[in-house]
């Protein structure tokens, strides 16, 4: 499909603010910790790739979730083609910072400057929004210049996602003018367009549901991105039989039916969502991702919230 498209040349850099060919659609995946964000994000990338699209999967947190689910070893800061037409990268904050400084400040050897780099890193962790803008900058540069049919970003959990999405605005408010502000405005624009989708992964349980509701309320108040799409993971199938008799089969059926009933109650508390199935038994991360890709293919999309 898009594989004949040009990869950017060496003169380009993540933080140059120019209009690229045609920005790619972007799906940002977040959710409460432990709901299976990385598996869902990787599954989506695999599914889109199966359809013949040229796809980039990004591990925004650097936690290794995308690499584990894709298989095939560690990821780097530069996109690597893990299968023909499927690319992946992980964001290394030090490298992202070095690229940022190289372009914005014109200090090419920044990464080798030791104490200076550490000092800047410390500054970035104190000033709100700086770290997030540097991370997000890398994602959005790939969206602008990578020529992909889809970019899927495995993002930090819901606790940090509003901070990440808000970062360009925070910086724009703190910095009155100049290149940084210009860049922040470009980022806000890319985030708020229709082709940027935020997926919130949740479970049909109390705490993830409540956290999803709170995140949706926060996002609705700030208008940073389009309303999120909800994906409910680990949904149990309906058991079409009575839990009769005694013994292990009846015990399993009783637990299943109670859990199913509770799940259905929690599902009602959120807008209609895409439902991905509970995966039983021993599976490797690679198998989980493949099953997730199947599930993306066969599940129905929920409505927009």
């Amino acid at each position, binding site marked *: 499909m898009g594989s004949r498209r040009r990869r950017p040349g060496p003169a380009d850099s993540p933080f140059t603010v120019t209009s690229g060919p045609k920005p790619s659609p972007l799906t940002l995946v977040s959710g409460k910790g432990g709901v299976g964000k990385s598996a869902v994000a990787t599954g989506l990338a695999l599914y889109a790739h199966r359809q013949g699209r040229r796809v980039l999967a990004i591990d925004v947190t650097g936690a290794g979730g995308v690499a584990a689910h894709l298989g095939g070893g560690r990821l780097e800061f530069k996109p690597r083609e893990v299968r023909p037409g499927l690319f992946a990268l992980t964001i290394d904050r030090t490298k992202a910072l070095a690229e940022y400084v190289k372009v914005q*400040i014109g200090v090419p050897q920044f990464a080798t400057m030791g104490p200076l780099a550490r000092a800047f890193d410390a500054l970035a962790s*104190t000033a*709100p929004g700086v770290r997030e803008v540097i991370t997000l900058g890398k994602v959005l540069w790939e969206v602008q210049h990578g020529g992909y049919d889809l970019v899927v970003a495995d993002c930090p959990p819901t606790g940090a996602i509003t901070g990440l999405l808000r970062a360009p605005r925070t910086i724009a408010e703190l910095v009155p003018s100049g290149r940084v502000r210009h860049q922040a405005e470009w980022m806000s624009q890319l985030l708020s367009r229709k082709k940027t989708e935020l997926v919130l992964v949740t479970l049909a349980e109390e705490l993830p549901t409540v956290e999803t509701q709170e995140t949706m309320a926060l996002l609705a108040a700030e208008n940073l991105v389009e309303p999120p799409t909800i994906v409910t993971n680990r949904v149990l199938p309906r058991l079409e039989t009575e839990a009769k*008799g005694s013994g*292990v089969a009846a*015990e*399993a059926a009783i637990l299943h039916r109670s859990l199913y009933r509770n799940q259905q109650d929690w599902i009602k508390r959120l807008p209609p969502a895409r439902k991905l199935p509970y995966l039983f038994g021993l599976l490797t991360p690679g198998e989980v991702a493949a099953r997730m890709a199947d599930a993306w293919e066969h599940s129905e999309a929920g409505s927009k919230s």
Partner: protein
Amino acid sequence: MTTRAATRTKAIVVTGAGGVGKTTFAAGLAVQAASEGKRTLVLTVDPAKRLAGALGLELGGEPRQHPEQPLLWGAMLDAAASWQTLAHRHADPAVADRLVNNEFFQAATVHFPASQSYAAAEEAANYLDAKVWDLVVIDTPPAAGGIDFFTAPAQMSDLVGGRLLRLLTGGRIPGRNFFFNRGARPMLRFADQLLGSDLLERVAQFLMDLRTTYDGVASRSREIDSHLRKAATVVVTTADPAPLTEATRFFLELPEVAAPPVAVVFNRSLPDRWATTPPPAATNLALAENLARWASESQRQHDARVEFAARYKAPLVTVPWLADAPNDLDSLLDLLKQTDGLPALW
């Protein structure tokens, strides 16, 4: 076990990844201890409305006694409020006011990963120092991912001690004038270009104000550390990969800051017999198929538990998977009754 220091209050820190049932298990431990005659305080973190529901206690900043169980108290740790307390406790009144109103102070309470944990740890230490309770059960903040609770005191004194200031200025902690007279330094010049000098100035003001709290925070950090070293750590997890990975960190990284965990609690455990007992002959197809998938899940859990216990030499505790979370004192006691393998903790 080492002998206890001045305080006779025993601390149990219940930790682990978010969403594994940590808060409920902490409440269960507290109810059980109270029922055995221990004056017990359970501390939980801000958004844990569920604990309030299960205990039947309106939780507030101050400990409240349970109406039905007079030996049981509950209190909530409020991280944002604790930070303000910290500023007022350790800085001059004028500096404290300026700090609390500084945008970076407000950002730090949200962004600096150790801050919520430090605030929680400092408040927990206050309750341990009070010597009112035999036992304090601490439910660690979920945002911290557990392990930060133990490393927070050191990280906090590092932040307050001015790591950034030292790096900016090359070793010495400067006064305000020194800092800005040396504004021509390359680091400052280029940070100015990047962020605007006004921003940098405000960051510097924040750090210098924060720096005045250093002596207080550093000595308090050491006291908190010594409390944490004496606490019994209980790691709660499920047999799922993500929380298990989090649980391994308490064995790989914790020994430097605290004693190794006294138990690993596997919540949502399925009975082993589901994997080993064939269904009765008369079972209908749907029920047999349903058992087959739960049997594979039971087997997966079993393997994960055994591997974990073998690798980390951890005392293994199982809590059955209950469809409905405990919602009163009796059902919390019942949860502990169904818990298998729990060592003596008090």
